């Protein structure tokens, strides 16, 4: 059932109905017992009264007495129906009240009995007076008693039947009034355009709805940030892709237009280089988008740091540089997300070998300070101008020492990936100006790390 209003109305209506029915049933059973008791007592009293008043010579007074005892108790629909008979012990009907059947109301048993007389059930109380030699029977038609009880029940149920539609109407109205704050939110949301995700006003919301509104607002903020982020990345990517495309197009047009063999070959070489650069740029943009969208899933495993670095170094064979691994202080393995770590270290390694001049060196080493492992990468490249250091992690930032193949995304990827791993990175120029010094502080050893994967 999707409508809260219908659902609440029905629940309330059914619940109210149930309570009412239960109450009616209870009242019915209690009243039933009470009425039976009261009427029985009256039968008893009437019989005793008649017995005490009867003179053997004066038995005809019975009728009057019984009528008198009755008249004050019941009237209208319930008038009558006590019947009285006085029998002698020898089985002779001495007298009876008017309207009483001729047949004996009961047997010779003392006390209450029930029997069918003329097809009708009767409840009879019998008193024996041994001194006077009479047996007084006072009877009550059970049909009448049942009518009394049925009427009582009707009195209870009839108003319910009449009130239920009214109750439904009142419940419906009350719920509508109660749901008004939700309606207001729905109206506000509906009147918005799809782009409009400014927060809802939670000030006037009732406290039950406020958490919902607040969570919704939090979601709006997150969605807005994500959208903004995506927009920026797309704009940047579009912008960054235009430059290599412009180069490609220009060189291709030259290759078509020139008649000079050397110029054409040069143009084709530039095209190949440009395609490599563009592919790398696209790959880096996709990587950035992927680690941006990374969700936390537990894919931590033990990673052999030395093996991982050796793998990265092997991927980038370079005869022009001296590449060293000094990992004596390094733990054999660390528990981390392998994909993210290799992504970060590979980008750093690529940066280093791209910037180091022929004959320069790239050195990976490891130190432990304050219980934390620090991976150090030293290169003999040109370093990064001091004023550019705070900017290098920005997306698409390319400084003065950029290389032709650089995308401006490498260090941004490194930064995001390491953040996900709980690691931190610091870049600084070596004190003697002989290159760049990079420190990656890995998360504390006891810590299991954030469970991120890409």
């Amino acid at each position, binding site marked *: 059932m999707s409508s809260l209003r219908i659902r609440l109305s029905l629940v309330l209506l059914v619940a109210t109905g149930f309570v009412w029915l239960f109450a009616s049933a209870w009242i019915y059973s209690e009243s039933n017992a009470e009425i039976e008791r009261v009427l029985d007592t009256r039968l008893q009293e009437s019989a005793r009264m008649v017995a005490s008043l009867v003179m053997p010579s004066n038995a005809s007074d019975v009728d009057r007495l019984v009528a008198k005892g009755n008249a004050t108790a019941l009237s209208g629909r319930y008038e009558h129906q006590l019947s009285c008979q006085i029998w002698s012990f020898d089985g002779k009907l001495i007298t009876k009240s008017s309207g009483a059947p001729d047949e004996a109301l009961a047997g010779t048993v003392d006390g209450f009995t029930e029997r069918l007389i003329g097809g009708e059930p009767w409840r009879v109380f019998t008193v024996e007076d041994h001194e006077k030699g009479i047996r007084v029977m006072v009877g009550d038609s059970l049909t009448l008693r049942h009518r009394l009880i049925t009427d009582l029940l009707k009195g209870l149920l009839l108003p319910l039947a009449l009130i239920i539609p009214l109750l439904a109407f009142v419940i419906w109205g009350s719920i509508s009034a109660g749901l008004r704050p939700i309606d207001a939110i729905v109206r506000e949301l509906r009147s918005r355009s799809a782009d409009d995700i400014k927060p809802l006003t939670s000030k006037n919301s009732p406290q039950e709805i406020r958490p919902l509104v607040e969570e919704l607002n939090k979601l709006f903020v997150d969605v807005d940030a994500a959208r903004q982020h995506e927009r920026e990345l797309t704009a940047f990517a579009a912008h960054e892709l235009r*430059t290599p*495309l412009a180069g490609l197009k*220009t060189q291709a047009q030259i290759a078509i237009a020139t008649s000079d063999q050397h110029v054409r070959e040069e143009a084709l070489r530039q095209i190949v*280089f440009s395609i490599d650069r563009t592919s790398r740029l696209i790959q880096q943009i996709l990587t950035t988008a992927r680690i941006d969208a990374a969700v936390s899933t537990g894919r931590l495993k033990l990673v052999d740091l030395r093996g991982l670095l050796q793998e990265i170094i092997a991927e980038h064979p370079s005869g022009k540089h001296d590449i060293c691994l000094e990992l004596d202080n390094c733990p054999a393995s660390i528990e981390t997300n392998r994909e993210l770590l290799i992504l970060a270290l590979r980008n750093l390694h690529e940066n280093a070998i791209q910037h180091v001049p022929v004959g320069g060196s790239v050195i990976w080493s490891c130190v432990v300070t304050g219980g934390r492992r620090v991976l150090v990468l030293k290169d003999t490249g040109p370093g990064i101008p001091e004023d550019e250091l705070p900017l290098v992690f920005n997306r698409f930032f390319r400084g003065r020492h950029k290389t032709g193949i650089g995308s401006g995304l490498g260090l941004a990827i490194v930064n995001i990936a390491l953040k996900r791993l709980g690691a931190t990175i610091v870049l600084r120029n070596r004190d003697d100006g002989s290159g760049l010094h990079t420190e990656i502080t890995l998360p504390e050893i006891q810590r299991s790390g954030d469970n991120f994967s890409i």
Partner: protein
Amino acid sequence: MRILVVEDDPVIASGLRNGLGLSGGVVDVVSTCADAREAVLSTSFDAIVLDVMLPDGSGLDWLAELRKSEDKTPVIVLTALDEVSDRIGGLDRGADDYLGKPFDLDELAARVRAIARRKEGRASAHLVSGDVVLDPASLTATSVNGEAKLSPREAAILLALMKRPGDIRSKNELEAVMYGWQEGAESNTVEVHIHNLRMKIGRDTIETVRGLGYRMKVRST
């Protein structure tokens, strides 16, 4: 036509050097604002092709600086920042034209020719002197000898001479329109090109002024 390209992307820079050279331009390439500043001090250019995002700052800032120093060299801004607001900003800061990346090489060459000729006060794409008509776009010259296809360097010399027919152009001036900084001129190349031009458009169209240089012969009326 001497063109300065301020572009830090090596592929585009080499593309512009060769591409604009195909249509008779002599292209000098620098990659920073600082180098561009130096270049305009030492050489007079017919047009500048300027990128916006340069390693040492915005090309538009340098352009504003250039205009402040009363330099009227036509500038076409070439950039990946291709929003309308960027274009307006660029034009308002002193650019003569604006082209977004990626661009068409032929269109760029045509736009460069257009801004350069506007600076010279010409509206027509063709130059006329006596019987000679030069079309710099197609590197062809029409004369009494008919239509002749010129090499880029021949066209550059003829263009320089025909910009102001009657004015004498020295040999050094003519060398400057044929070669950029990186290219060394051979001692007699101007003479060789003038000789070839005379073969193509008529012996008496270009006059040698002994000891001074060359000029287009203006028919006395």
